[in-house]
C-alpha cells in the first residue's frame, strides 16, 4: 500500500540506454504484475507491445465506421443536392445515376477516414496533454533523443516506491529517479499574455463590425467591396449629364425633329397594328387595357395584304410558336406547357399565378386575327407582350399557326358520332421533375 511519501509522487522512472535494456525491463515489470506503467522511447520499438502486454488498438474499427459514414454522407449530399433539392436535367439523363457520383463519394470516404485516423489517434492517446509531470524531469528530455525510459506510476495498486526503485535498478537501469507530482505551472512570459490578449480582442472586431452592420442604420450606401461591373464609364437612359455638351443636359438624345429612324415607319396599319387601314391605331398596351378604354377598334379579321399565308409562313409560325409560346400554352395549344405544368405541380396558383389559357377554347377562337396579333404583341391580362422579342412578320406567322392549331387540335370537342370523346389532357397526366419542391 502506498505510504504518505508516495502521495507526492507521480511515479518512479528508470532510464535505459538501448532497446534490449528497455525490453528486458518491460518484461520484468509486466511479470511483476504492475498495471499502470509505461515505457517511453525515441522511436517505436518493435516487439515491445508484446513485452508490455499492450492490446491491439480499436482505432481501425473506428476508422472503418467513419469511412463508411463518409461514403454515406458523400452519397447523401450528392443525392440531396442534385437528385432531390435541385435537379439537373441534362440531356434526358436520369436524376440519379451512381457512376458519376463515385469519385466524390470516394473522396469523402477517404477524408472522413483520414481525419478520424488522426483525431482518433490523438483522442485515444489523450493528446494534447501538455502538463505531464514527466516533462518536468530534465533527464526525461533525452527520451526524444536517445534514451529509453520506464515509468511506474504511483497510482498502480502494487506500487511501493522503494520496491520499484530496487526493481528498476535490478533491471539494469542506467539511472532511476522519482517523478514528483508537481502540477505547478511554469509562468508564461508577459509578452505571451500580451499577445494572447491582443489577438483575443482583435478577433472580436469582425464580429462587432458585422453586428453593427446588422443592427445599426446608416444613410450612406453599403460598402462595395467588389465593384463587379456596377460602375461603368457610360450614361444610362433617363439620367442627367452635366457636361455642357447639350443644352438640355440629358444623357439620352432625342431623334432629330421631323425624322423617323430607319425601319420605324408604321404606315401599314394592317401589318403593324392589326386594324383596318386608316382606322384608329391601338396604343401599345395590353389587350385588357385596350378593351377597358372603350374605343371601338376595327380589328382585322383576315391577314394584312403584306402577309402571304402559305406553307412557309405556317412552318415559320410553328417554329416561332414552339420557341416563344409553347412553354406556357403547350405545343398543342392546350395550355399545358412545361411552365404551366410545373406551376401547377408546385401550387403556384396559391401565390397569384394565373394558369395560361388553352388556345383551343372558344374565347380564344372567337378573337379576330387582329386581336390575336395585338395580344401576341402587347399581351393580355397577366400575359406579357412579345413585340420586343418577336418581329412583326413572325407574330403574324404565329397567329397563322395558332389558327392552324385551333383547326386541328380540338380532339376533345369532336362530334359524338365520330367516336368516344377523348378527355382533355390535365396537368396530372404529365410527368414533371421533382425539383425545387
Amino acid at each position, binding site marked *: 500500500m502506498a505510504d504518505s511519501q508516495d502521495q507526492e509522487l507521480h511515479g518512479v522512472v528508470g532510464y535505459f540506454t538501448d532497446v534490449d535494456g528497455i525490453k528486458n525491463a518491460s518484461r520484468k515489470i509486466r511479470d511483476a504484475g504492475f498495471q499502470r506503467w509505461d515505457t517511453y522511447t525515441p522511436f517505436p520499438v518493435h516487439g515491445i507491445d508484446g513485452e508490455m502486454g499492450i492490446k491491439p488498438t480499436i482505432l481501425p474499427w473506428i476508422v472503418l465506421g467513419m469511412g463508411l459514414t463518409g461514403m454515406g454522407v458523400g452519397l447523401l449530399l450528392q443525392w440531396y443536392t442534385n437528385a432531390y433539392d435541385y435537379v439537373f436535367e441534362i440531356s434526358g439523363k436520369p436524376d440519379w445515376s451512381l457512376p458519376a457520383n463515385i469519385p466524390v463519394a470516394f473522396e469523402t470516404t477517404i477524408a472522413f477516414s483520414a481525419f478520424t485516423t*488522426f483525431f482518433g*489517434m490523438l483522442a485515444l492517446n489523450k493528446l494534447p496533454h501538455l502538463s505531464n509531470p514527466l516533462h518536468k524531469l530534465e533527464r526525461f528530455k533525452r527520451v526524444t533523443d536517445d534514451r529509453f525510459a520506464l515509468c511506474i506510476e504511483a497510482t498502480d495498486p502494487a506500487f511501493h516506491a522503494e520496491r520499484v526503485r530496487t526493481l528498476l535498478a535490478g533491471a539494469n537501469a542506467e539511472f532511476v529517479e522519482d517523478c514528483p507530482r508537481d502540477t505547478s505551472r511554469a509562468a508564461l*512570459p508577459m509578452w505571451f499574455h500580451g499577445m494572447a490578449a491582443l489577438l483575443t480582442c482583435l478577433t472580436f472586431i469582425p464580429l462587432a463590425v458585422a453586428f453593427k452592420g446588422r443592427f445599426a442604420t446608416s444613410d450612406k450606401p453599403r460598402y462595395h467591396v467588389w465593384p463587379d461591373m456596377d460602375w461603368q464609364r457610360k450614361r444610362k437612359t433617363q439620367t442627367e449629364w452635366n457636361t455642357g455638351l447639350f443644352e438640355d443636359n440629358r444623357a439620352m438624345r432625342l431623334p432629330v425633329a421631323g425624322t423617323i429612324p430607319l425601319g420605324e415607319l408604321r404606315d401599314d396599319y394592317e401589318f403593324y397594328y392589326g386594324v383596318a387601314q386608316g382606322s384608329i391605331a391601338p396604343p401599345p398596351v395590353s389587350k385588357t387595357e385596350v378593351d377597358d378604354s372603350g374605343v371601338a377598334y376595327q380589328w382585322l379579321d383576315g391577314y394584312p395584304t403584306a402577309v402571304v399565308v402559305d406553307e412557309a409562313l405556317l412552318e415559320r409560325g410553328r417554329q416561332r410558336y414552339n420557341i416563344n409560346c409553347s412553354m406556357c400554352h403547350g405545343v398543342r395549344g392546350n395550355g399545358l406547357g412545361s411552365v404551366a405544368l410545373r406551376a401547377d405541380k408546385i401550387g403556384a396558383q396559391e401565390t397569384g399565378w394565373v394558369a395560361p389559357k388553352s388556345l383551343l377554347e372558344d374565347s380564344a377562337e372567337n378573337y379576330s386575327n387582329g386581336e390575336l396579333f395585338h395580344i401576341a404583341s402587347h399581351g393580355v391580362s397577366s400575359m406579357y407582350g412579345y413585340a420586343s422579342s418577336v418581329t412583326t412578320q413572325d407574330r403574324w406567322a404565329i397567329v397563322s399557326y395558332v389558327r392552324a392549331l385551333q383547326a386541328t387540335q380540338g380532339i376533345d370537342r369532336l362530334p359524338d358520332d365520330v367516336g368516344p370523346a377523348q378527355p382533355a389532357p390535365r396537368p396530372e397526366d404529365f410527368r414533371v421533375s421533382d425539383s425545387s419542391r
Partner: protein
Amino acid sequence: MSSQDPAAFGGPSFGDEDPRQRPLLVDGEHEDFASVTQAVSGIPEVELQKTNKAWIACFMVSLGLLGVLGAMLAHLILTGVGVWGNNNPVYWGWPIVNFVFWVGIGHAGTLISAVLFLTRQNWRTAVNRAAEAMTIFAVVCAGMFPGVHIGRVWVAYWLFPLPNQMAMWPNFRSPLLWDVFAVSTYASVSLVFWYMGMIPDLATLRDRASNTARKIGYGIFSLGWTGSSRHWHRYERAYLLLAALATPLVLSVHSVVSFDFATSQVPGWHTTIFPPYFVAGAIFSGFAMVLTLMVPARQFFGLKHIITMKHIDVMCRILMATGLLVGYAYAIEFFIAWYGGVQYESFAFVNRAFGNYAWAYWIMVSCNVIFPQLFWSQKMRRNLWVVMLISITTNIGMWFERFVITVTSLSRDFLPSSWGYFSPTWVDMLMFLGSFGLFFTLFLLFLRFLPTVAMAEVKSVMPQAHGAHGNETHGHGAHDETPALPAGGAQTAPAQRHES
C-alpha cells in the same frame, strides 16, 4: 560462410560479407541515435543571426518572386482575367497548365510516404518528410491557379456545396467539381499526414529547445508527446491506416484531374489512357522535384550521411522508370489515334507532333523520355550535376506536357474556322514565375524551422533499433543470439524473442 556460399558450387565466394545485407541507410561508422538527432535538430536550432548565407540568399530571391506573385494576383483580381492570354478558342491557358503542373509535383510526397511505407521501402525515411512538405506547398500553388481562374475570386465559395441565397447547388456530375473534392481532400489529408509524422520530431525539438519562443512553439505543436509505447502503438497503427488511405487517394487525385480533360469530347483529350498516364506523369514530375530540392538541401545542411547517395540512386531509377511509363503513354496515344480511325483524333496527334506547337512537343519528348535514359548508367546516377540537370529538365518537360495537352487540343478542334494560336501575356509568365516564389518561400521556411528529416523513423531503421546487435557498448540486453539483419534488409523482425 554458409552452405549457400557460391564457393561451395565453384563460384566466387562472398567472403565475409552477408549478401542478404543491403547497404546501411545511414552512412558512417559511428552514427547513433544521438548523432542523428543532432544532425537533424541542429538545423532549426541555429540562431537567426547565424543562418546559412546560401539560405538567406535563396530566401530573399523567393520572397522577391512571392512579391511578384502578389502583385500579379492583385493586378489580375482588380482588372479581370483579360490580363491573361486565355482567349477564344484557348480558354484553358497557362493557369490550368500550371495547376496540373503543380498538382503533379505534389504527388511524389504522398507516394514516397504512403506507397513506399506500405511496400516496406525503408529508404524512404530519409526523404519522406521533405517530400511531404513539398507536396503540401505544391498543392498550395496548384490550388491557387483554378482559384483565380474562375475570374471572380470573391465568389470562389460557389465551388463548394454551401446553402446559398440562390437556392442552387453545384453539379456533381461535373469532373470540375470532383476536382474540388479531390484536391481539397488531398491537400488536407496530406497536411494531416505530414503533421502527424512530425509530432514526435517536434517533441524532440521541444525537449532540446533553449529559448522560450521555441519551447512554446514546439511545445504546443508537439501536443505533449512523450514517446509512450502505448502511444506509439496507436500512432503506428494510425500511420499505417493513413498510408493505406493516402495510397488510393494519391492515385485518385490525378485521375480526377485527368477527367477534367478526358470527359470532354475535344480530340486529344477524349481518351481512356488519361488517368494512368496522368498519374505516371505526376509521380515522374514529383520525383524530379524531390531530387531538385534534396540534392542542394543535403549539401547545404550537412545531411549527406542521412540522405545518402543510395537514396539519390534509387530516386534516379524511379525517375527513369516513370519516364519510360510516360514515354509509353505518348506512344500509345499515337497508336490509338491511328488504330481508332477517327480522323479528328488522328489529326490532333499529327498536329501535336508536326503542327505549329511541334516545338513544345519535342521539348516535352526530349526532356521526359530521352534525357532520363542517361540514368541507365550508374556513373550518371552518381554524378550530382547530371542528376540536378536531368531533374530540372524533367520539370521543364512535364510543364510542357501539360501545355501540349491543354493548348494544342484547344487551338485545333473540330472546326478549322475556330482555330487559333495561343500566346501568353507577361502576366501569365510572371504569375507562373511567382508561383515558384510561393513554393520556395514555404519550402525554405520548412527547411529552416522544422525537422527536415523524420528523425524517429530514421532511428527506427538504424541497426541499433533492433537490439541485440552488439554494436552498442552497453550490451546488457543481449540474451538473444539471433544475428539481426541491419535495417533496410529483410523484413523479418530480428528480435523475435519468446518468454522463457
